[in-house]
């Protein structure tokens, strides 16, 4: 009797969590295909189509707005930010973790402190730098600025990862015929893949979701990202283009949710295999 009850409780709990997680996505998807008359009638059940669904608002999103440009910009900036972050944070974290004495630790903390300064304080001086570099109003402004947040954070995160790798592994590699660089690339790097994957997710998610920098440094609609462009184009005065807004959000959310879901699985596996540290999650 007990096992059956326990299983029942387990699945009930699981169902509740699933509903909680899926609710906003379901709401977005349902709303995206509603006709105006259906959406704005308060008497209608918001989860059902009281009038036949329509593709009109989704088509509008791609034909009547710059949404496809925003998507491309977001992807372009996101990938570049990830690449820059990894190129700077991985070597920085590795060398700091292997620095003898207390300087490694101190520099690590100093780098992390940079991350704690809020963007709302930084955007004015950063704006001056960006205009000085003639990058204002282009995607390059954001490519340049986002690493100021992602690099310190990811360096800190990877520092913990590299520190948890036993030094003996690299020494074994040195004795087995590797140069210092090969020991890093062939032994230390593969073992810190879960940390690097975490950095990729963090850097990409940050460049996608940031609003302050995206609106301050870029005003031309051709250079906007999704998070800045969608609200400026689909909220005109006090008119909200709800269905198109929902569609715009869903189109970005669902593929990302799937991708992160798959990556998360790998992350967990990475943590479980005895290789890398447990204190790596911030």
């Amino acid at each position: 009797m007990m096992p059956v009850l326990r299983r029942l409780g387990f699945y009930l709990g699981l169902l509740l969590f699933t509903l909680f997680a899926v609710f906003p996505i379901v709401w977005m998807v349902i709303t995206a295909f509603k006709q105006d008359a259906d959406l704005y009638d308060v008497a209608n059940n918001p989860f059902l189509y009281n009038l036949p669904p329509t593709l009109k608002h989704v088509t509008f999103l791609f034909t009547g707005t710059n949404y496809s440009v925003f998507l491309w910009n977001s992807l372009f900036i996101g990938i570049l930010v990830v690449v820059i972050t990894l190129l700077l944070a991985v070597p920085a974290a590795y060398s700091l973790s292997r620095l003898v004495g207390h300087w490694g630790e101190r520099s690590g903390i100093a780098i992390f402190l940079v991350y704690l300064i809020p963007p709302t304080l930084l955007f004015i001086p950063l704006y001056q730098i960006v205009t000085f570099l003639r990058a204002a109003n282009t995607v390059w402004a954001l490519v340049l600025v986002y690493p100021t947040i992602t690099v310190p954070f990811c360096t800190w995160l990877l520092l913990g990862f590299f520190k948890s790798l036993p030094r003996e592994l690299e020494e074994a590699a040195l004795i087995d015929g590797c140069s210092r660089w090969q020991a890093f690339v062939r032994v230390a790097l593969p073992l810190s893949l879960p940390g690097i994957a975490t950095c990729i997710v963090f850097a990409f998610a940050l460049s996608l979701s940031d609003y302050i920098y995206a609106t301050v440094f870029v005003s031309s609609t051709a250079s906007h990202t999704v998070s800045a462009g969608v609200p400026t184009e689909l909220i005109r005065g006090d008119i909200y283009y709800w269905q198109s807004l929902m569609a715009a959000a869903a189109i970005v959310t669902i593929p990302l949710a799937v991708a992160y879901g798959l990556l998360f699985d790998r992350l967990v596996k990475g943590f479980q295999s005895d290789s890398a540290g447990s204190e790596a999650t911030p």
Partner: protein
Amino acid sequence: MATLELRGIKKHYGSIHAVDGVDVVVAEGEFLAILGPSGCGKTTLMRMIAGLEMPSAGEILIGGKPVTHLPPRARNVSMVFQSYALYPNMTVARNIAFPLKTRGMPTAERDAKVAWAVGIMGIGHLLHRRPARLSGGEKQKVALARALVRDPALFIFDEPLSSLDAQVRTMARGELRQLHDRTGVTTVYVTHDQLEALGMGDRIAIMQHGRVHQLGTPQELYDDPADTFVAAFLGAPPMNMLERDGHIVGFRAEYLLPSASPAAAHDDALSLRMHISQLEFLGAEWLVYGEIENGATPQKLLAKVPPAVAATLRVGEQREFTVARSRLRHFDSTTGLRVRDERG
């Protein structure tokens, strides 16, 4: 296979002298054990031989060739780490092949080499496992195979048995020595366990405070310790030591016997009247804890006696014990060094 020569090796970290002038020559195919308490500098010395640390002064020669300033990969030394340091992201087969891969050996030749090393260690059934799924003994075998696979000039072992269970350790000791005899590779074996050093080493270097106190065969070290440190460090129990006539007299517990027992020395023997404070059963022998009056302060002594003799002893008794004068070792009471002229 090659000789190893250390000439005046020093390593200073600031004011700390981790290794303070070590001169050792290891012959081709020899098994040298470096023995010492923790912090004696044996690990630092070993790391300098491997090339993981640079000496502050001195010269290292492998096979007659100076390698003092060469990186580890240019020295052709193999090392088995205390933790084994198997690469957790690679299977056993790839772990063993790794040293060959970094040297750019062609695949066919590499596979043959790996198969040879795997055969010697008898670990064919483990090839596709990851290190995380191996027992301590299996990890050790894989680490040995990885060290063996590339015909190194020198094996370096860093306490490779210390993470094994006590039962497995005795077996592993035998296997390790057999492996050395089979391959004939010059070996430097670092340990703090005197049983390992005595049991496996052709010669032992005993280290303390960054210096080699004595270098010799296990028998030499046991019978003729060069100073009081070696005498007190080696052997279980350590050598008995008495202050006598301004110098220190040392003798092994097994030579101290009740004068009534048949094996006891009678002619030309040192006779001591000992108060027996405790008897301890060791299996094949008994350990007798005793005290003698030596000047003002009582001095504790240990005797190792056969069971037949132990049966005649009672705790609390005063008994006459003797030790043959030929078994006595004399040390200077200030320097602790061996005094060679055998005075009474």
